């Protein structure tokens, strides 16, 4: 097994040093950029408030946070580590249903059941992963697809407490919760925070979801980033490109794959719960094959195997349908056309293509190197360090 080199963090600059040292050829964080980004995201809602469609924009951002988590986790196992699992959407549903049912039937608070959903999803992933991850690539597709179908079938035709006659869960309580173990213990929706009047009632609950989503998404993204750009992360990427090499370096592919699979499932389930409590509903329609393909498109469109690509793709495919809403019937047609065109002219993903264009305009050859997704040679070189 690879030695985990994670010295303890002490001071702030120490932390920054660790981040910089472990950051790979793609994604060296410039502290200024990161902090600026965080600040912008924190203040965004107030800015959007001024615009007429501000609330709608926040709604979109909430969706992007949730689905972004699912997509970047899927990209982690598929695009980066080469585990071609088609069960991502089903795992999302596991998280959503678990949390929803726990709240509906047992009255627990969503703040807690959210995490229960995440844990349950990770657990299910491990159970699936144990037999499946040992198999060759295409069979992982097969069996996870079979799992997807199975789960969809179950929530459609299964016992009443999960299928509700095929309609799925409805009226799933949102945050803030109503009760905990039966006792009435409401989270305050109007309170004072350091002299400011915070009001999260009614429409303003959107803000709650926004910040919660921001935190969860940030957590997930940060965790993925740490995994990818640590020595272990390099091994994960080596796994995708050459399992034989990885094995010869003492890496046990199976354990790593299982870990990644469970990790990815955890956050996917978490996102599932998060969005289920936001929507207030979850149903088998969610597991239509078409939706699965839509998620796939988000990854590939943004940039398969890259870090920010899938998130970009998610944002694009979430916002685009809304922007094009005025086209009505022709909306989907245009989206399909856009997808095809993008694939034809930017085969490696939109984000890498845009980055390449941008940097070529500003910096020339050095930029073209930086814009590539991680190639096997780099992973192997860095493993040697």
């Amino acid at each position, binding site marked *: 097994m690879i030695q985990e080199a994670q010295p303890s963090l002490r001071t702030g600059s120490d932390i920054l040093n660790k981040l910089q040292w472990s950051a790979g050829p793609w994604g060296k964080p410039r502290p200024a950029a990161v902090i600026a980004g965080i600040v912008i995201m924190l203040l965004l809602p107030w800015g959007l408030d001024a615009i007429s469609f501000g609330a709608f924009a926040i709604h979109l951002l909430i969706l992007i946070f949730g689905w972004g988590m699912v997509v970047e986790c899927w990209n982690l196992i598929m695009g980066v580590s080469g585990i071609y699992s088609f069960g991502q959407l089903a795992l999302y549903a596991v998280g959503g249903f678990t949390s929803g049912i726990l709240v509906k039937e047992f009255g627990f608070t969503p703040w807690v059941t959210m995490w229960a959903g995440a844990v349950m999803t990770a657990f299910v992933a491990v159970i699936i992963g144990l037999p499946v991850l040992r198999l060759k*690539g*295409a*069979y992982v597709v097969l069996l996870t697809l079979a799992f997807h179908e199975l789960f969809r*079938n179950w929530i459609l035709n299964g016992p009443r407490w999960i299928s509700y006659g095929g309609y799925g869960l409805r009226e799933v309580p949102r945050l803030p919760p109503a009760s905990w173990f039966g006792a009435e213990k409401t989270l305050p929706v109007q309170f004072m925070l350091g002299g400011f009047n915070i009001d999260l009632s009614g429409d303003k609950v959107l803000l709650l979801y926004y910040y919660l989503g921001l935190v969860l998404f940030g957590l997930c993204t940060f965790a993925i980033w740490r995994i990818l750009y640590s020595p272990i992360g390099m091994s994960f990427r080596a796994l995708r490109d050459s399992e034989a090499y990885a094995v010869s370096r003492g890496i046990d592919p199976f354990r790593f794959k299982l870990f990644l699979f469970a990790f990815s499932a955890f956050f996917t389930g978490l996102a599932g719960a998060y969005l289920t409590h936001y929507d207030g509903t979850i149903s088998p329609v969610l597991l239509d094959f078409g939706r699965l393909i839509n998620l796939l498109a988000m990854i590939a469109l943004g940039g398969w195997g890259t870090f920010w690509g899938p998130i970009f793709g998610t944002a694009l495919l979430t916002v685009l349908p809304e922007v094009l809403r005025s086209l009505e019937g022709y909306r989907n047609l245009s989206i399909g056309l856009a997808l095809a065109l993008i694939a034809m002219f930017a085969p490696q993903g939109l984000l890498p293509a845009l980055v390449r264009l941008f940097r070529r305009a500003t910096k020339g050859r050095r930029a073209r190197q930086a814009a590539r997704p991680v190639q096997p040679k780099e992973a192997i070189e860095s493993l040697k360090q």
Partner: protein
Amino acid sequence: MHVQDLFQAAYSGILYGSVYGLMAIGLTLIWGSLRMLNLAHGSLYLSGAYLAFALVNLKVVHLPLLVSFGLAVVGAGVVGFLIQFLMVDRILGKPGWDTASLIVTVGASIMLQSAALLIFGAQRKAMPVLLEGRFRIGAMLIDYHRLMIIGLGVVSLIALSLFLRRTRYGLAIQAVSQHMDAARLMGIPVRSTFWIVMFLSAALAGLAGVLLSSVFELSPTAGYNPMARALVVTIFGGLGSVKGTIWAAFIIGLLESFLQVYAGAGWALPGLFGFMIVMLIIRPNGLFGLGEMQRL
């Protein structure tokens, strides 16, 4: 256990197998030669079905059912060819091919689906059957139409096999699938061979669409489930292996049918799942030996 049930299960199983075979074989051919996962396959099924619907309901001229169906199948083939010619050709072999081909087919699929929605609307449509009526064997009711589906399905699969093994173009398709560079050195034009592959695969998917939409009603989202099933069958049969796919189609079809009859509809899918896991544990290389799969 009635002999009745046995026949019923076998009959349904062969029906499923024929349909799965029609759908899956297209995917297999495309994967084998192009190394592309054709996610537009479901919409090719749809194209065949809707074309048939349109032709059948043509007010201007009244076409015999058989002609309408035949034209629809060819039409689906043309659609597949167009996808290849207009979109996939452009990115053949370029870097990022694996995922770009995925997205291109997704894009094409969405376009076709929305076109169907725009032209025909979201309501389910009914399709006439080619042959009305049924007959009895004992207490079992057999539709002529379903019998015909089996017949056409089996005949198509046999015709395809013969084409692949006995004709110059069929052998060329196999050659390209087995070794593209060597095929080039034989003077085989790879690009146009792919056109033939896409046309054939699309036509077969279209045929499945035409046949099945008389059984299940037709709507714009009707293509996804057949494609999901086809994917399962294709992979199980050994990606790229025509023989394996046909076997897999019937094995899975029969298994599903028997499970439905003897264990109840709810157990069909879980049973299949379990069977596949066990099979893959015993034979990790798949039904006919998959060989090293480096990527999807």
